[in-house]
């Protein structure tokens, strides 16, 4: 009997203790890469979650139990796509427990509902707000130093963390079940995230220096240290305006118009550049 009273139908009559194999977990991992392919405003990533966990559900259930299990994972779900693998692993373990009658449907639903928020917060702050800017600015500095394989460094650095966390999350989630988050908290992504801001700061400064050097050598060069002064002043003004919620697109067109007006206007009064 399931916890909600429905009779469970084991996928194989020989299975006294229903388990999913390593191959099934690998299929869950593969599918999790398409987690947001059917994202919608009503229930967000619910289709992606159900799609990812489906190989495990079809191993554990048949008939009415399979229908109930599919419907169970089509409830609202919204978390960070990389951190979801840990949730998927833990949920597969809990589904095994449910199939064996050791837990309840409600516990699985409340586990998902409770954990998706904190996991999203950690994933967003680490991957989107820290690692991506750091890896990207490092690679941008590489490009400005004429390192043609800098984009590969960006991909390698980013995916080292991304893929490791996904694979580790899924398998440790499966091993530890609901306690997987104790393990994830031990990694201390928050500290990594904090440090990556400093590295990103250095990379932005390096990129700026290289850009000024590039501008100094250009045909539009103004001579001496004017490029450095001009670029620093522009960056600081734009940074302040961005912090005051002026959007990038307004700054792009605004400063372009200003630049065109200044050069063309000045040139009409003092024709230094011949047509």
């Amino acid at each position, binding site marked *: 009997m399931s916890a909600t009273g429905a009779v469970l139908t084991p996928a194989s009559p020989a299975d006294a203790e229903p388990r999913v194999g390593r191959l099934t977990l690998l299929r869950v991992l593969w599918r999790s*890469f*398409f987690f947001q*392919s*059917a*994202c*919608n*405003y009503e229930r967000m990533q619910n*289709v992606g979650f159900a*799609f990812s966990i489906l190989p495990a*559900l*079809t191993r554990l259930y048949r008939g*009415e139990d*399979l229908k109930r299990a*599919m419907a169970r994972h*089509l409830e609202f779900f*919204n978390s960070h*796509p990389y951190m979801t693998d840990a949730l998927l692993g833990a949920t597969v373990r809990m589904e095994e427990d449910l199939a064996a009658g050791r837990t309840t449907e409600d516990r699985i639903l409340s586990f998902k509902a409770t954990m998706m928020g904190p996991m999203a917060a950690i994933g*967003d702050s680490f991957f989107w707000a820290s690692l991506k*800017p750091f890896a990207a*600015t490092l690679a941008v500095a590489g*490009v400005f130093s004429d390192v043609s394989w*800098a*984009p590969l460094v*960006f*991909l390698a650095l*980013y*995916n080292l963390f*991304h*893929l490791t966390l996904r694979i580790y999350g899924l398998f440790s989630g499966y091993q530890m079940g609901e306690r997987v988050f104790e393990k994830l908290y031990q990694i201390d992504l928050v500290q990594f995230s904090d440090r990556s801001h*400093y590295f*990103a*700061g*250095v*990379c*932005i*400064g390096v*990129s*700026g*220096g*290289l*850009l000024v*050097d590039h501008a100094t050598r*250009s045909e*539009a060069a103004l001579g001496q240290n004017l490029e450095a002064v001009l*670029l*620093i002043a*522009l*960056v600081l003004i*734009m*940074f302040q305006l961005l912090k005051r919620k002026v959007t*990038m*697109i307004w700054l*792009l067109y605004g*400063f*372009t118009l200003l*630049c*065109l007006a200044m*050069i*063309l206007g000045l040139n009409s009064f003092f024709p230094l*550049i011949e047509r």
Partner: protein
Amino acid sequence: MVTASLDLVRDGALLTLVGGALALDRRGAFQVMVSQPLVLVPVLGLLMGQLETSLWLGAVIQLLWMSSLIVGASVPPNETLAAAVIGAAVLLYGRHCGVVDEPVSALAVLAGAPFAWIGRWLDIRLERGNLDLCIRADEAARAGTPFALARLPALGLLRTFLAESALIAAGIAVTMFVLVVVRPRLGTPEVKAFEAVGFYVLPALGLAVAMTTVRRRRALLLSAGSFLFVLFGIRFLEGK
């Protein structure tokens, strides 16, 4: 003439399809960051045999949209579509129309940038459209047909690919039109003005946007320090 036009259309179609496929990585599939401008534009550049131009362009576009983050249910401007449009237009111009200089890159960024916001509108429409997939998933669960549920993500990806490819194609057409019409008509003062936009305004704006992603005050001081260190380090090494 006809052969040249056919070549242009063929290259445009190739860049559209590759750009559309890589754009899926942004949200729908994998998310291994090949959809980032820093990677996407050089991939297009490799296809057109112009890696060097595409590396610089990709890096500047990356900086401009560095703060575009998909957090929770928020839908930011779609930097991938803008990068595909700008990158493809510059590369096509360089291969079929003329030399890619700073004014060409600056004009392409100015003409292609709005496609990031049109892409955002498209993303919202696609997510609304996916509600239909959600309803079909419920039906599959009621019927107990895992196969019906399993094919829904592929449908979502196909829709996204078709819609984004169409937008990239339209964007390339508009941006190419601007480049082909405007660039040859620029006189020397206008060329100088657009060079200044390319050399100063775009990099400065990119750096300012990148600085907004740094959340620590001391990290900004490190930025300033490393900026001066690199600038004067280069000059010291060159004996200036």
